[in-house]
């Protein structure tokens, strides 16, 4: 029993170390170091604030900046998670070659690192929200937990597929960057999701759309998410993650031979 728990603890520690290293690695060598993790989202939201409050769209609802920023950081989480996953096996080739470390641990670490980045962005958003607006904090915020869980599973599922396909298709990263660019404009990040209610209702069944809408409803409107769409999005996300995992386990056995 002790043996099992020690092995499991070591595994968790290893995932933590990989996630931690991945997160902090991007700030090595810069003078301000980890401070950039806070400065970047801060300046990002300030740029949006100045742009949309003073330069263009001056007549627009000031809440639009909040709408936009929640959309951007949520999309950024999905985008960074999937983009980084593409060359995950090739980046960690040396580690995989020298040990019997389960491949899924690399994905857990990636998820941990990117989700931590997302939380910091979200925290900066909340600070901005409190300083410049009058937010209502209610128990409805607890609904962010299933939404974030679903969003993470959705991203993880894509990460499994992309990392595995990249073993056999080395220019997948270029193709994926086009998909992400198209996705940015196709899901309601910039445009108002209310359009979907009348014309494009089917889009509510796309998990990333449903999660984006849910986050805005909880945080900006103090409303409960639409349970029908949330449950559907959760089921679809878990299915994508599960099938992605099976696919990765089966098809990545020969990863080291191709990379």
């Amino acid at each position, binding site marked *: 029993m002790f043996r099992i728990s020690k092995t499991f603890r*070591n595994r968790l*520690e290893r995932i*933590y*170390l990989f996630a931690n*290293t991945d997160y902090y690695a991007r700030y090595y*060598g810069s003078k301000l170091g980890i401070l950039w993790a806070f400065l970047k989202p801060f300046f990002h939201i300030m740029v949006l604030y100045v742009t949309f409050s003073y330069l263009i769209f001056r007549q627009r609802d000031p809440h639009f900046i909040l709408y936009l920023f929640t959309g951007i950081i949520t999309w950024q989480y999905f985008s960074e998670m999937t983009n980084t996953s593409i060359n995950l096996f090739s980046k960690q080739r040396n*580690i995989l070659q020298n040990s*019997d470390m389960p491949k899924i641990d690399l994905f857990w670490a990636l998820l941990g690192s990117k989700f931590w980045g997302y939380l910091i962005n979200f925290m900066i958003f909340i600070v901005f929200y409190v300083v410049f607006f009058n937010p209502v904090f209610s128990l409805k915020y607890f609904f962010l937990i299933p939404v974030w869980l679903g969003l993470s599973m959705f991203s993880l599922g894509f990460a499994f597929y992309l990392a595995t396909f990249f073993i056999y*298709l080395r*220019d997948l990263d270029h193709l994926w960057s086009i998909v992400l660019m198209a996705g940015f404009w196709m899901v309601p990040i910039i445009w108002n999701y209310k359009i979907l209610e009348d014309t494009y209702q089917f889009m509510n069944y796309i998990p990333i759309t449903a999660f984006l809408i849910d986050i805005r409803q909880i945080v900006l409107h103090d409303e409960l998410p639409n349970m029908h769409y949330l449950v559907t999005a959760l089921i679809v996300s878990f299915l994508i993650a599960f099938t992605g995992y099976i696919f990765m386990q089966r098809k990545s056995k020969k990863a080291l031979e191709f990379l």
Partner: protein
Amino acid sequence: MDNDIAIKLENIQKTYILHDRGNTIRDRIFSFVCGKGKRKLLALQNIDLEIKKGEFFGIMGRNGSGKSTLIQIMNKSIPPDSGGKVCVNGKAMRLALGVGFNSELTARQNIMLNASVLGMSISEIKSKMDAMIAFAELENFIDTPVKFYSSGMKSKLMFSIAVNAEADIFLMDEFFGGVGDKNFREKADKVFHDRILKGKTIVHVSHQVHTIKKYCDRVMLLDKGRIVAIGPPKEVLKLKGAN
């Protein structure tokens, strides 16, 4: 598998598929439509082998004879063809010089990651960190990214991590004997002999006749993926024409 056996390989065969066209989406479509562009390379054939616990087992052979492929199959980092069976009794660890490091990270961070992958807990790594740094003689460069290290410095660092790692079976792929300068090699040799060889199973891939002669209990000679001979070093080396 018997309890005194560390590694057992049955009917191991390994075929690599070589893609002449490459691995892009366009190449895949062309290969699919034209049905060409693939070649098979038989890297290992009919390998049956048992290595006992505590044994120092050498593997020799020319470049391309299948030594590294075999080590990676023992390490389970690549699978054999269907029908082959790999049984490993205990935790195996592959040691190869200069690999395993993320060049963007500092030596300290690489120690944390590599030692963790090799089964050490964070508290263990932290308690042994100073000893590992001192052993590698890298006190002044420990927070320098590994990309600025020479190959000798990387080798010392990897060796230092390896001697502190927990493993029952060490799979040494051209690892031993190539570490650092003469002084460090002598120190490494002593530590290796005192600390690792006792009770551990070693599979040692090498071209160096003197380490094979000095340490190995048995040696296997590979040629074009097949076993040519297995036996005491003297006999196998004689067959190889090396002594």
